[in-house]
């Protein structure tokens, strides 16, 4: 089911009685979720991603704007008529019911023409349970299950009524690291098998990048960028998106563009087209954008080198960096040559260097046909 959000806005009344200022949770959301895809709503806490999810499922009504499922306007439709399955952050499994009863619960609500016989219900519950691989746990109570198993039960309960849209609210946040990795693959598999349009909310960029077909990056209720994870990573629209995606995070610097050259500190690090206006800019350089080179144009003072097997992380300082340390990820085979006073020099991969407006943080794009620039 294709989902279209049109100018969706949600405001909450002010908590503070003295000021009448409303809290804008979601502002003017306008995008389309293609049928059968897995979409990640990504953003820091309080960016309105959960509110967006709740508006899609109908538990919260938008202040303005419209929501379409396919061609149907569902904006004012009650949640039970939307055909959505929602998996809550802490699963919300009924603690007094067994796994089987929990999964059966939505089916037992069906009325009229949709009503199923007992056998059909049990059959569908078993199929849903098998899909998420908890078929043997049907007679347990939720309290007797691990977090990951509870998560699966919650997904089975959401899927058993064959929803048109599956919504997951922070599905992995209550799991430990290893289970998280396993479960996110599981979610991807289930989504591929059922082909149900799935929207999930997360603040973990790695999680969103790894399983989504498309990510929607949000900040303070406003969509920052929408696209395939790799595209958004490679081509961020603004400084926020660039900083939010990627581990280790992007290195940011205060820079200046003057006469077609980008300066970081005193180093003229990159030639940029004349289309880039002169003046101060914010510069983001991905950790993998550094190429160690003793004659490189970018310099820093080495702090230490962390070897992590396949590659190593070169930690150095630079006076223009906005954080105390700059981190570069380089192949561990490459010899790092230290100059006098522990100076290390790098060349930069042009496609890993992003220039942003110093005030607004908007990206200033320049031609990056040349993949890497060497002196």
């Amino acid at each position: 089911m294709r989902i279209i959000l049109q100018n969706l806005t949600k405001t909450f009344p002010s908590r503070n009685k003295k000021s009448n200022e409303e809290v804008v949770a979601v502002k003017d959301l306008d995008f389309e979720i293609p049928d059968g895809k897995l979409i990640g709503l990504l953003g820091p806490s309080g960016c309105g991603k959960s509110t967006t999810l709740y508006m899609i499922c109908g538990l919260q009504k938008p202040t303005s704007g419209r929501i379409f499922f396919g061609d149907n306007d569902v904006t004012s439709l009650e949640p039970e008529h939307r055909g959505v399955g929602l998996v809550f952050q802490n699963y919300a499994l009924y603690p007094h019911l067994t796994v089987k009863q929990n999964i059966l619960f939505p089916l037992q609500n069906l009325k009229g023409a949709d009503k199923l016989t007992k056998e059909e219900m049990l059959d569908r519950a078993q199929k849903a349970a098998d899909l998420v691989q908890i078929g043997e746990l049907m007679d347990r109570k939720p309290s007797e299950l691990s977090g990951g198993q509870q998560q699966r039960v919650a997904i089975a309960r959401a899927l058993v009524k064959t929803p048109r849209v599956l919504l997951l609210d922070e599905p992995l946040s209550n799991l430990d690291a290893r289970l998280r990795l396993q479960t996110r693959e599981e979610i991807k598999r289930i989504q591929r098998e059922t082909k149900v349009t799935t929207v999930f909310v997360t603040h973990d960029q790695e999680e969103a990048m790894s399983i989504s077909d498309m990510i929607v990056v949000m900040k303070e209720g406003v969509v920052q960028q929408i696209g395939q994870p790799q595209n958004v990573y490679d081509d961020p629209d603004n400084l926020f998106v660039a900083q939010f995606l990627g581990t280790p995070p992007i290195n940011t610097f205060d820079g200046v563009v003057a006469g077609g050259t980008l300066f970081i500190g005193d180093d003229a690090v990159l030639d940029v087209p004349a289309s880039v206006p002169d003046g101060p800019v914010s510069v983001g350089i991905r950790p993998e954008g550094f190429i160690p080179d003793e004659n490189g144009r970018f310099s820093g003072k080495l702090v230490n080198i962390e070897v992590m097997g396949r590659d190593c992380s070169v930690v150095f300082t630079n006076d223009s960096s906005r954080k105390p340390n700059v981190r570069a990820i380089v192949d561990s085979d490459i010899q790092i040559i230290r100059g006098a006073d522990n100076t290390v020099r790098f060349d930069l991969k042009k496609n890993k260097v992003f220039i942003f407006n110093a005030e607004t943080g908007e990206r200033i794009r320049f031609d990056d046909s040349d993949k890497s620039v060497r002196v």
Partner: protein
Amino acid sequence: MNNAVTIKKQKKPKAVKDNFESSSNFKAWLYLSPALILLIIFSFYPLINTFRMAFLNGYNGLAIVGGEKFTIGIENFKTVINYVDFKLCLKNTLLLCVVTVPISTTLALLIAVALNSIKPLQKFLQTVFFLPYVTNSIAIGMVFNAMFTRVGLGDLIQTQGIINNIIGIFGIEPINFVNVGSSWGANMFVVCTYIIWNAIPFKILVLLGGLQNVNKQYYEAAKIDGTSKIRTFFRITIPLVSPMLAYVIITSFIGGFKEYSSIVGIFGDGMGPGSNGQMNTLVGYVYNMLPKSNSGNASAASLILFGIILIVTAINGYVSKKKVHY
């Protein structure tokens, strides 16, 4: 030599430990003693003594004066059970419990759910519903008496309470609820109304607390799954507040078996209209026996009451083990 050394080494720390333990034990008992002494004097001794008195045939509390020895037996129990008034008391008590506990619990649950689902005036209404709990039960009894009263007959009615005035609007003849000559059924109706009204506030408080602790997400999940309101109530709300329900039911059964002050409030300590004792309860019976130097019978009666409460509570506990979801 070697052996001696090891033994010595082992013993020494042990002695220190013993010393330390006994001194800390002494301190523990010292700190507990104020509470313990009071408990022994006012709870444990009377409790044990009740058993003793109940099994001494014809015990009247004057043993030492007369120098007479009582034989051990179950005469007291026989007397109590064969006593006509005792059967009435038992009947009254059981009926009060069976009628008032389910009604007051159901009403309290409904009111609690209603209170929980409204936002405006919730705090105010909570206070209103809680008022009976903080009002003196004798005072409420007297007000109930005034509300249900009717003095005189037919055209000669001199004064009547608000209840008779209200039913008079519907053309119903005034009923003698509480005054001399009133029937046992009418009395029972008034007492049950009183107990239900008086029992609801505490139950609302407990159940409301339970309801407010239920995670809202269960209701959201149910809503998305299209669960009807009634099904949500029976399949989600009730199981999730069942520990509170069990608590409320068990305590109100126990309270019901100990019912006494409500009847005194309405009828005075004659325990019935015109002090005829027709509304007497088990606890009332025990109190009646005491001034008549029948402490043997009183003890036996309270042991019977104890037994009944024990059985009912055990049944409650058994049922709630199966039905309550902790």
